[in-house]
């Protein structure tokens, strides 16, 4: 069977760039550029989350300044900016610029086609997107991930049962969950498996920090948050769920205030193949 492993990033990794309108102006005289930029910066400063946009777009022999975001009519400009335009013979025009800072190199490349942007590449993130992290996509690692998921999927074919595989520095544990017995409403595989580890004094310990967890189904909000409380390192799931909280309803690992972040991976047979 062929398998596929993809990271579920805490943001939308699509290279498509959201845009916003802006008023820009060509500057005929380069010598005036710095004073124009200074004046514009005082009247229309770029806020912290707009600072990814550069103020000036340079092309050979041509300079364009970003005058104001979100506005396309020259009449909407402050009087002093209108006189700045008149005084220096600026040529205003409308433009479409990126709405938010690029997160990935692919997004950066698309964004700069619209308007020059600042960008700091996050190498770990690019390695994830490019499937280059050897602990995930390296041959031996990949076979291990597949084997753990296959064992989860095999164990849960017994009616009324589910299974969770837990990999920690001390070894691998397979936790069988009897869905009826372990509770109807809160006895989901994750909750039951954490509880089993607690009562068995498993070497995985009280907190599952440094643990990787293999789940058949994308966990719900309750279970995903339980995995935050348990401080797991990485979560692998096979089937997205309508009430899933790592990819479907929300990407829980993207929420800023949570004081623990984990890696999330979608590990499934290629072409939705049969199991």
């Amino acid at each position: 069977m062929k398998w596929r492993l993809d990271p579920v990033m805490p943001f939308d990794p699509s290279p498509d760039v959201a845009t916003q309108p802006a008023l820009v102006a060509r500057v005929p005289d380069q010598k005036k550029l710095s004073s124009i930029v200074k004046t514009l910066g005082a009247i229309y400063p770029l806020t912290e989350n707009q600072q990814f946009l550069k103020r000036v777009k340079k092309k050979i022999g041509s300079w364009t300044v970003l005058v104001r975001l979100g506005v396309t009519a020259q009449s909407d400009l402050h009087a002093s900016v209108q006189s700045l335009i008149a005084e220096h013979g600026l040529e205003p025009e409308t433009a479409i610029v990126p709405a938010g800072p690029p997160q990935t190199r692919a997004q950066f490349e698309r964004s700069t086609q619209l308007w020059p942007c600042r960008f700091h590449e996050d190498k770990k993130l690019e390695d994830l997107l490019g499937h280059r992290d050897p602990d995930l996509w390296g041959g031996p690692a990949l076979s291990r991930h597949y084997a753990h998921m296959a064992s989860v999927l095999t164990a849960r074919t017994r009616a009324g049962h589910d299974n969770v595989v837990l990999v920690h520095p001390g070894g691998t544990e397979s936790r069988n969950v009897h869905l009826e017995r372990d509770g109807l409403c809160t006895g989901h595989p994750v909750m039951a498996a954490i509880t089993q580890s607690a009562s068995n004094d498993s070497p995985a310990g009280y907190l599952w920090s440094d643990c990787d967890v293999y789940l058949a189904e994308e966990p719900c909000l309750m279970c995903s948050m339980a995995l935050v409380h348990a401080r797991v390192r990485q979560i692998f799931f096979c089937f997205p769920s309508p009430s899933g909280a790592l990819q479907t309803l929300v990407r829980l690992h993207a929420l800023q205030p949570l004081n623990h972040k984990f890696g999330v991976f979608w590990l499934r047979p290629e072409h939705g193949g049969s199991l």
Partner: protein
Amino acid sequence: MSQPSLSPGPHHPHGPHGPPTPALIEPAPPAAKKLKTDTGPADPDVSYNPRFMDLCFDKAREALHVGEVPIGCVFVREGHVVHAARNRVNETRNPTLHAEIVAIQALERQIRQGQGQSTGRLAVQAYFNRVVVYVNCEPCIMCASALQQVGVQGIFFGCANPRFGGCGTVLDVFQVDHTRRWTPFVQQGFRAHDAIELLKEFYKGENPNAPPEKRKPARK
């Protein structure tokens, strides 16, 4: 603590629980959702009663004395306390045992013992549909989702939970998870100041120089 009972009780055409018995989770159409309200239901059995919040604080203090994050909750059904619980994370070494989960699981066990192991999810939900929850701190995302999944009628809480709050502070679980087709009413701010002081008392015991993410079990 009174035994939970699954009998629907004497039949009243329009009460005593106000609107018709809240529909069970599975068949409830989206229109049957209980909406968040600032005024709360008119039914005295489900309107705020400070006595129950005081009980939460008793439980929370009990937690504090044994080194747990001081959070306590009280589940009230038809005007009676059916369960009171506190946080048991450190004692059980189980990071899921927040007060609300302890209470839900204890009640579920009681219901199923009374009704037999075959008690279905719908029977459990029918029971919780008439339960209102009091808790001194906003339920976290895990607990808010659990409370939605068992189908409690409403939640009264004290202070907001800026790190994990699932009733709107970090995430509004009831808004996000439309698959449950159930929205408990939520009212907040009851004895909020006392709740914050109690939490501060707990965190004072920790190394104040540690950055928040390095501090110990702190989970609520």
